[in-house]
């Protein structure tokens, strides 16, 4: 019996260790998963603003979402180092949703009710968003999602629901434009996993491709899929003119490798939803080809030279990072700029209602990391968005800009377009 008890204790220890691995990152500051804690002697002495951040730090899309959080934290560390907002530092309380909607809701409720945050930022897979937006609407806490928002923020936006990143219906529309830049005939294959956003992106992407005269086919796989050789072989057999993948880093690595190994040599475009440049490089390396690989997104690449990207790289050098710098960090940096501007406009103290008021009429200069300002106006909580494509250049070992930013007007102005 004592042996059995020892064993049970061992199993419980293992469970505890595993749970700790995906532990909530409640540092009350700006450190944690994004690198060093804020130990700066320059930290402002005023009472802090408090923001919540919910995302997947231990689930299947950890690789995609953690760097975004790191970008957000780097911005806040730099901000605090520079004196905060009128002498008030910004504290970020982080919670891990493990890509589970119930966990995301309970974490958000805890942040709202116990941590008394002014607003919640980040979020993970689109399938978790609707529940969080609904719960936070009841709690009257504004939520600003990162790179994978759903249509709740489009006009007429749901109260308290904002997105400063990618809304998949809009991203799909942009993807359609890039699809037709790369191919004007043949078959376009849209690949995604089972998620609200992925399906929405493919719907919009295919609609634009069909309008341009392309045949469209779709491949959808479960979020848990990690072995892509059969999928790669299946897509290669369809002999497509262009393939676009709407999913995270890990899926891109696997699909690129499987596609190239299966003999597909045509253009592959990674929709940039937290897909790191490093992940794409690994996929190309494993697939044995660096040719014809593209990515597109709302944010600049970490390889670009825009002012905001340079600031991010400087902050990363000062504070350190756990993850290879990528465009996912850029998107987190952009989200943090929105938080900074909204809190500045809100003043101190900033209640959730005041932050919501500030967000409703906000224009943020992103210093070049997007093609134009991120702007919210009244019931439009997304605004005009700008998209750009990059192609991998093996000579420069970097993703280089392919064409100009494409502007997609706010949905209301576009007459309900956008997918």
């Amino acid at each position, binding site marked *: 019996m004592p042996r*059995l008890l020892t064993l049970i204790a061992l199993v419980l220890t*293992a469970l505890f*260790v595993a749970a700790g*691995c995906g532990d909530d990152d409640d540092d009350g500051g700006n450190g944690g998963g994004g690198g060093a804690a804020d130990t700066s002697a320059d930290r402002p002495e005023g009472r802090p603003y408090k923001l919540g951040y919910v995302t997947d730090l231990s*689930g299947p899309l950890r690789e995609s979402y953690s760097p975004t959080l790191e970008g957000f934290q780097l911005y806040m560390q730099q901000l605090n180092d520079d004196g905060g907002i009128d002498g008030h530092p910004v504290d970020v309380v982080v919670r891990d949703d493990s890509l589970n909607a119930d966990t995301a809701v309970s974490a958000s409720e805890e942040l709202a009710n116990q941590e008394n945050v002014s607003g919640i930022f980040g979020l993970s897979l689109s399938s978790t968003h609707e529940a969080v937006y609904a719960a936070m609407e009841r709690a009257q806490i504004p939520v600003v999602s990162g790179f994978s928002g759903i249509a709740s923020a489009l006009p007429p936006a749901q109260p308290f629901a904002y997105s400063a990143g990618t809304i998949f219906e809009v991203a799909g529309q942009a993807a359609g434009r890039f699809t037709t830049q790369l191919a004007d005939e043949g078959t376009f294959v849209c690949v995604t996993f089972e998620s609200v956003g992925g399906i929405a992106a493919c719907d919009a992407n295919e609609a634009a491709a069909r309008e341009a005269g392309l045949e469209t086919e779709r491949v*959808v796989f479960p979020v848990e899929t990690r072995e892509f050789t059969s999928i790669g072989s299946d897509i290669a057999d369809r002999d497509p003119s262009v393939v676009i993948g709407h999913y995270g880093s890990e899926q891109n690595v696997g699909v690129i490798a499987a596609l190239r190994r*299966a003999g597909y040599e045509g253009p592959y475009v990674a929709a940039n939803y937290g897909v790191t440049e490093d992940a794409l490089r690994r996929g190309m390396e494993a697939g*044995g080809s660096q040719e014809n690989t593209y990515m597109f997104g709302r944010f600049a690449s970490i390889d670009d030279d825009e002012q905001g990207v340079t600031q991010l790289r400087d902050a990363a050098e000062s504070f350190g990072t756990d993850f290879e710098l990528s465009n996912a960090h850029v998107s987190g940096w952009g989200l943090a700029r929105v938080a900074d501007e909204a809190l500045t406009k809100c003043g101190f103290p900033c209640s959730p209602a005041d932050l919501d008021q500030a967000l409703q009429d906000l224009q943020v200069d992103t210093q070049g990391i997007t093609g134009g300002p991120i702007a919210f106006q009244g019931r439009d909580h997304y605004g005009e968005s700008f998209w750009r494509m990059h192609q991998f250049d093996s000579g420069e070992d970097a993703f280089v800009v392919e064409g100009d930013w494409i502007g997609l007007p706010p949905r209301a102005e576009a007459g309900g377009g956008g997918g």
Partner: protein
Amino acid sequence: MDELSLVLALGSLYALLAVGIVVVYRTSRVLNFAQGELAIVGGYGVTTAIGVAGGSVILGLGLMVTVAAVLGVVIYFVLMRPILGEAPYVGVLVTIGLAIFLRAAMVFIWEGQIEFVDLGETGDWAIASGLEVPSTNARTFIGCTATFIVIYLIYQRSRLGVRMRAVAENVTLAAQRGINVDVAIATAWVVALVAAGVAGALYGAQALLSVPAAVVGVKAITAALIGGLDSVKGAYVGGLVVATVEYFTTTQISARYADIAPILLLLIVLTVRPWGMFGTAEEVERV
């Protein structure tokens, strides 16, 4: 030919993982739910081992197999031996705990990064005049099948295998006949870990390594159950069946259902033949 080589590669890989489950189950009545995690740890381990071995794939694999064998002994004596004689579910719970522990270990040690195992070229291999197959598929099939055959021969033909099978039949009687039960069951765990390690290394070259990739263990369990939980050769057939169903579901129906289709087949097999394709009815009664 590409399609066939892919099915054979994945099938042999699932089979190698499944045979580890079968051997452990036969000798100790423990259904090992940690086989997928052990495989991915093996894959990560081989990337580290190749680095330690100065980039030599052969030395790296050898190092990984050695470490896997030692860990097999450790797992038996630390985790499994204390629960000998306990109800079968206790062993299952321990392997679930082990799986959770290994997932945490992968994050701590390898930071949960996406990795590929570089075992050499990724082009095509000419296997006959005008006949080429992707080298990754060929390497996986040859590596997994060769390891499987070695395990099969040890289990079916060697004196050690006879002792393991004797323990599987009746532990008490085997002990009374002078068979060292600890050695027999520890060997089963060594076999399971070496199989997992080799499969993990080849999986890492075929697909990709990540913490969630441990879900491959579900396919191994499905293959073991389809083939028959007490049948070594059934594990190979089960692996091929799972890979075939998975591949044809992906290409002919939808990748959406590729993971669920083998499980549906398992339900059908278990309904018609609860002991699996090559298993024995007696085993079901024992459980």
